[in-house]
């Protein structure tokens, strides 16, 4: 569906923005048509987030202009942008946990009654109206605390609607959603489009762009490379534009012969989260835990590693049982965990690169009880080299690195311990395509060297390409197991969503 006639609702024309010597956005142009969903694609560092912040009024453009309905507009702050009808929904929903859903929607604009006091009944009523318009149902009086991520997003969208937003910008909205919730989101986007809104949809998932958007813009190095209707481009086109080069293979995989059992999990159980989880991982094999977000996969990994205490069941590494709830014991047994949340769990953002790499190995770097800085630096340099880390100075904080390089630091931290079992949770989430391939190559190299890998991933293509065996979790239980040969998208998704009875392979 192409909007050929009308002028764009919002036109970004030749916008540039620099921070000091760094040009984050250079001469970017992008049309947003009413009733259309427009995908914005690009690697990390391409300038998408900066562009979003300019639209949101958080930053002012250095040059170029924004045109709404053909008229130039200037935003002096987020409030101005919102007043003009642009609403941005960020990746992490920003709600007030202590306040009610309705108050979250109308914060700062609560309907007033007699004597300028807040009319709660009217507020709740209006909130319900917005939810109805969206086709969802939520209790406006409940506190925002405890809402699922998907529901939080719905509240954010409701907030946008209540502002009579005509342009909705969504920054990676599907990253933490289950497939069903993604479906619901797309329906909501369709509803918004039907009502004449324009949606700017930023995602790393190319398939989603194809499934839900009518137009696509690809950014690279701060510039808009190409804008085209979705039917005029292929995935290869997109990748080439994003990366600037052809990638012959995205997900390489070499076959290896699995050895002895490294990890043996039996009847692992954590009350209310997962139940009766049993599986094994052998040397030289990649076992993937697949399933919808929220199925309990990360929780299983955390319980195996000892971050969370298990209710019952045993975890054995090289035959020896691990004590409950002691990550240090798991580490000493040769287990490593690259966690799901890079910024909160994987790295100390304000520490330097070398300090982060060394954080799990400090015991080894000691002499007479004191840390040897030279050994620390050496360790970091070695792994930075092996992982082809791109950085300017080892002493810089990791917050200065791109997502892909940050992930390499986390990997370096754990590989420095020479683990025999690597648990890696969402290995390539939020990472550009180029680094993605590097990470996959790295994992293959590891299993070739005899490391056992337990991989958790929500990206089916990744799971299917990398895993020797696929275990599917649904609502805290293993519902299926597939070998590499048996696994395909359809069967895995069925097991993950419980759509048909599962026959164990």
């Amino acid at each position, binding site marked *: 569906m192409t909007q050929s006639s009308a002028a764009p609702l919002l036109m970004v024309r030749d916008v540039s923005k620099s921070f000091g010597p760094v040009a984050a956005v250079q001469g970017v142009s992008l049309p947003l048509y009413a009733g259309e969903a427009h995908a914005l694609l690009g690697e990390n560092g391409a300038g998408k987030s900066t562009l979003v912040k300019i639209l949101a009024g958080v930053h002012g453009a250095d040059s170029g202009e924004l045109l709404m309905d053909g008229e130039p507009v200037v935003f002096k*702050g987020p409030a101005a942008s919102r007043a003009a009808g642009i609403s941005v929904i960020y990746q992490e929903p*920003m709600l*007030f946990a*202590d306040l009610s859903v309705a108050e979250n929607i109308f914060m700062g604009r609560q309907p007033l009654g007699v004597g*300028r006091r807040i009319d709660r009944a009217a507020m709740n009523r209006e909130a319900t109206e917005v939810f109805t318009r969206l086709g969802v149902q939520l*209790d406006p009086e409940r506190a925002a605390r*405890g809402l699922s991520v998907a529901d939080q997003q719905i509240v954010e969208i409701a907030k946008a609607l209540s502002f009579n937003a005509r342009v909705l910008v969504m920054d990676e909205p599907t990253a933490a959603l289950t497939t069903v919730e993604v479906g619901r989101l*797309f329906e909501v986007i369709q509803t918004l489009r039907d009502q004449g809104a324009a949606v700017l949809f930023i995602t790393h998932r190319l398939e*989603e762009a194809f499934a839900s958007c009518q137009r696509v813009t690809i950014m690279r190095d701060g510039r808009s490379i190409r804008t085209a209707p979705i039917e005029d481009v292929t995935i290869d086109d997109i990748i080439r534009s994003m990366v600037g080069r052809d990638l012959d293979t995205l997900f390489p995989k070499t076959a290896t012969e699995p050895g002895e059992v490294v990890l043996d999990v039996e009847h692992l159980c954590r009350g209310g989260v997962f139940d009766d989880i049993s599986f094994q991982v052998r040397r030289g094999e990649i076992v993937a835990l697949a399933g919808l977000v929220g199925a309990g996969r990360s929780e299983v990994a955390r319980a195996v590693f000892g971050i969370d205490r298990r209710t019952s069941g045993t975890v054995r590494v090289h035959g020896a049982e691990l004590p409950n709830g002691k990550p240090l014991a798991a580490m000493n047994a040769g287990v490593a965990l690259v966690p799901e949340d890079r910024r909160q769990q994987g790295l100390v953002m304000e520490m330097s690169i070398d300090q982060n790499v060394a954080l799990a190995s400090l015991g080894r770097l000691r002499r007479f009880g004191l840390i040897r800085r030279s050994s620390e630096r050496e360790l970091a340099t070695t792994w930075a080299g092996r992982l082809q880390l791109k950085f300017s100075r080892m002493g810089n904080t990791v917050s200065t690195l791109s997502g892909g390089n940050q992930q390499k630091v986390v990997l370096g931290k754990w590989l420095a311990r020479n683990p025999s079992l690597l648990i890696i949770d969402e290995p390539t989430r939020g990472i550009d395509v180029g680094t993605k391939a590097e990470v996959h190559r790295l994992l293959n190299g590891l299993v070739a060297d005899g490391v056992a890998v337990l991989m958790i991933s929500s990206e089916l293509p990744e799971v299917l390409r990398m895993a020797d065996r696929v275990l599917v979790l649904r609502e805290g239980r293993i519902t299926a197991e597939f070998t590499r040969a048996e696994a395909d998208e359809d069967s895995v998704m069925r097991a993950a*969503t419980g759509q048909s009875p599962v026959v164990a392979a």
Partner: protein
Amino acid sequence: MSVITAPAPAPTDRPVSRLESLLRARELGIALAIIVVFGLTTLNNHAFAHAASIQQLLNGAALIALLGVGETLVIVTRNVDLSVGSVVGLSAYIIGDLFKHNHDMSVVLGFVIAIAVGAAIGAINGLVTTVARVPSLVVTLAMLYIVRGFDGVIVNGKTIDPDSIPTAFTAVGYRTLFGIPWLAIIVAVVVAAVGYAMRSFRSSRDLYAIGSNPDAAELAGIPAGRRVFTAFLISGALAGLAGALFLALHAQIDVSGGSGYELTVVAAVVVGGVAIFGGSGTVLGAALGAVLLNTINQALVASKVSSFWNGAIAGGLLLAAIAFDRWLSLRVARSLQSAEGAHRDL
């Protein structure tokens, strides 16, 4: 990745505002606790329920409750005001000194000046916290030193005694209306007014937003600096008012007036259900917390338990209150999550 468009999921409705009703239960719980303590003590010592005893109860709690109102506003925004005790002492002394040298200064003017002194210090706290973005713990701690020091300098070892203070002023401290002390009435009015405002006006709801999620508040366009500044201003002004009432109540003031109040106020406020990390809590709860703490103190005296136990019991109570709060929030979170899980159908 294949995207499955599922039929719209089951309505995710929840029992109406379970959290809100729990919160309201907190104030109720404290009120209940007060009644229980009061009742038990009276059984033991009938004099506890006499008018004079109750008046003393109310008066004892009044100042802390008043300070608690201002402190609640500040703590809700994820800040803290440790300077309130020293402000009480300073403002009390300043108007005491003024009365001493201008014996016919009007009572109203005395109150106004006391409030102004407090407001001035509150303004400094607010400015430094919001403009210089300094953690309020540090700012108000520093102001506590500075104000106490300044107070010490102008007091210089002297004391204002009852003779210096006009009876019209001290009347506020001991007069009653239908048996209820004026002091308690004044504080009750302030609590009611501020409590109503906190629920009903947009700018007060902003305070809760700021404490609940400062980043989201900024994105929502809430003028956090202005709001936090106002919170500190009010806290200071109420502390100034408390200073005037202190003088009226005790009819004398020296250099130690009000010292140590700040920690008692924080304890009362936390017991009253105001989250120390901001975002929730009511001034009514804070006031009730002050009343509860004082009731327990007086109950101990009335039960012939040595008053030496006051401190230990207050400390134990505070620890129990925050432990209870934590247990409560864990329970709520768990129940909300399991309700979530129940709806995770396909």
